[in-house]
């Protein structure tokens, strides 16, 4: 199956849980779809066997020698990328080419630009694909689509039964790009007012795209009243709570050493994660 791990709010534990999925479920290919802040590869040593650069966006480039300063480009640009001197700001330009059409002097052309780098490889947790956006680059949604494709190819070649996607925070472009063909989602949240607020919105996205979803509550003991509030929200919404992970100061310490909580018998968080994937396997008949 193809399983996505999302949260709405950032920093709730998506990446740690996705990595744990690869330890707890059989034959998993991991795909890091958070190309803005790709972190999955930091958890293990990755033996990279293929990499490449993806040029997913374009930018308009003006030839000053040909420009007659008529201003048509500035008039048609909806992204305020052309200033009073008709200089095009590459960070505002969306590469749509409206200025190219509008220019009567053929002074503007579209040039493709590198968006980010992708890789596929193997780790102690199995096959892994990921990508990283270059600093200041846009088109993260397109890069997510590319890395998912690489992940699918890798899963096929490695004979994986499951693909687990570590998603981006938020509900916008990179998140929506990661949802295509996902069969089920784990939504990870924490018992904070932001955690609940953001869960409601990401659940809205999951429902909008009709993807069945499960809930995991991380750092559950941080605020018992809010944890209860989130559990009753889940019950009202028919969202199955797969399990609660207690706050565990061992988690960052293990991460620094490159170890996984699920392999540490003394980690309460690790124990809880194992329980969560056992429950998921039962629910999904894996």
């Amino acid at each position, binding site marked *: 199956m193809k399983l996505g791990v999302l949260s*709405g*709010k*950032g*920093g709730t534990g998506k*990446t740690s849980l996705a990595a744990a999925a690869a330890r707890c479920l059989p034959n998993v290919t991991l795909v890091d779809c*958070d190309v*803005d*802040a790709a*972190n999955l590869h*930091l958890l293990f040593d990755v033996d990279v066997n293929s990499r490449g650069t993806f040029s997913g966006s*374009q930018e308009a480039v003006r030839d000053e020698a040909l420009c007659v300063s008529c201003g048509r480009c500035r008039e*048609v640009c*909806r*992204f305020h990328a052309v200033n009073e001197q008709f200089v095009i700001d590459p*960070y*505002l330009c969306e*590469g*749509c*080419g*409206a200025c190219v*059409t*509008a220019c009567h002097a053929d002074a503007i052309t*579209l040039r493709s630009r590198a968006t980010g780098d992708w890789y596929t490889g193997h780790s102690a947790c199995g096959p892994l694909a990921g990508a*990283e*956006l270059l*600093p*200041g*680059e*846009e*088109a*993260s*949604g397109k890069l997510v689509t590319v890395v998912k494709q690489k992940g699918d190819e890798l899963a096929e070649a490695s004979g994986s039964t499951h693909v687990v996607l570590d998603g*981006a*925070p*938020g*509900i*916008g*472009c*990179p*998140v*929506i*790009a990661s949802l295509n063909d996902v069969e089920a989602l784990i939504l990870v949240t*924490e018992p*904070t*007012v*932001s955690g609940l*607020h*953001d869960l409601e*919105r990401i659940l*809205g*996205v999951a429902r*909008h795209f009709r993807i069945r979803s499960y809930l995991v509550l991380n750092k559950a003991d*941080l605020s018992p*009243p*809010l944890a209860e509030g989130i559990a009753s929200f889940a019950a009202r919404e028919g969202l199955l709570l797969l399990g609660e992970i207690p706050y565990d*100061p061992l988690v*960052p*310490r293990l*991460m*620094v050493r490159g170890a996984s909580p699920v392999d540490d018998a003394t980690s309460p968080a690790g124990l809880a994660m194992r329980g969560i994937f056992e429950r998921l396997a039962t629910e999904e008949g894996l």
Partner: protein
Amino acid sequence: MRIAVASGKGGTGKTTVATALAIVLSERYRVTLLDCDVEEPNAHLFLRPEIDHREPVSKLLPVIDEAMCTHCGACAEACQFHALAVLRDHVLRYDALCHGCGRCALVCPVGAIHEQPHELGTVETGTARGFPFGHGRLNVGEAMATPLVHALQAALPETEITILDAPPGTGCPTIATMRCADVALLVTEPTPFGLHDLKAAAGVAEVLNLPAKVVLNRDGIGDDAVERYCDEHPLSIVMRIPFDRQVAALYADGIPPVDALPDLRLAFRDLGRQLVEEGAG
């Protein structure tokens, strides 16, 4: 002066830092807080603003007059986002892919395309604790966050200090937030994830020519790699917030930690003073 609070990694404490700075700086200056994380806005949960104005934000979607359309394919060829597909007797439009640039209408040789607004979300403005507050809310199922960030930044008059609470990541909405700032405060934590994403956020600040300073949150939970990186880069760590379950519990309940912890409030006053003095100098 515009201060962007950004991070790369999510959940490092951007909203805690942005709201704390707005609270302490509003004691002495005219401050506006803009929560630019339009996908998951959270600052209002802590500041509880009274919203008095709501403005929908739209993109323009093409509408094809099939009676006039000759199905020549010029629009689909011109569209860089693959949002149009021209079939023999029909044009398909993929709304989520459309950026609303209007190029299809520009190239149509028979004028068969006009545009009509499609709502992406709402910009809401009001007052929180006596200072102007604004945030945006992207509609669920919409992909394009950037137009809301731009609309939000134009929604309120400029005050002495504007605090911009940035979305996580380094993509378009983060760039749209940071590019109009004078200084970036990068909030991170001492873990491998925190370090990796700090580098990405510092990279964005660098390409935007924005001076960057670091706030090290949850100091003590991991290792010293962030400090070593900041030393070498060099990036100055202007504040350290030790890990404290009390801070986490206050945050959980939607209480700005500076309201309950006098020492933390003093530390934010120092940070605010330092930023304003350096900004003025």
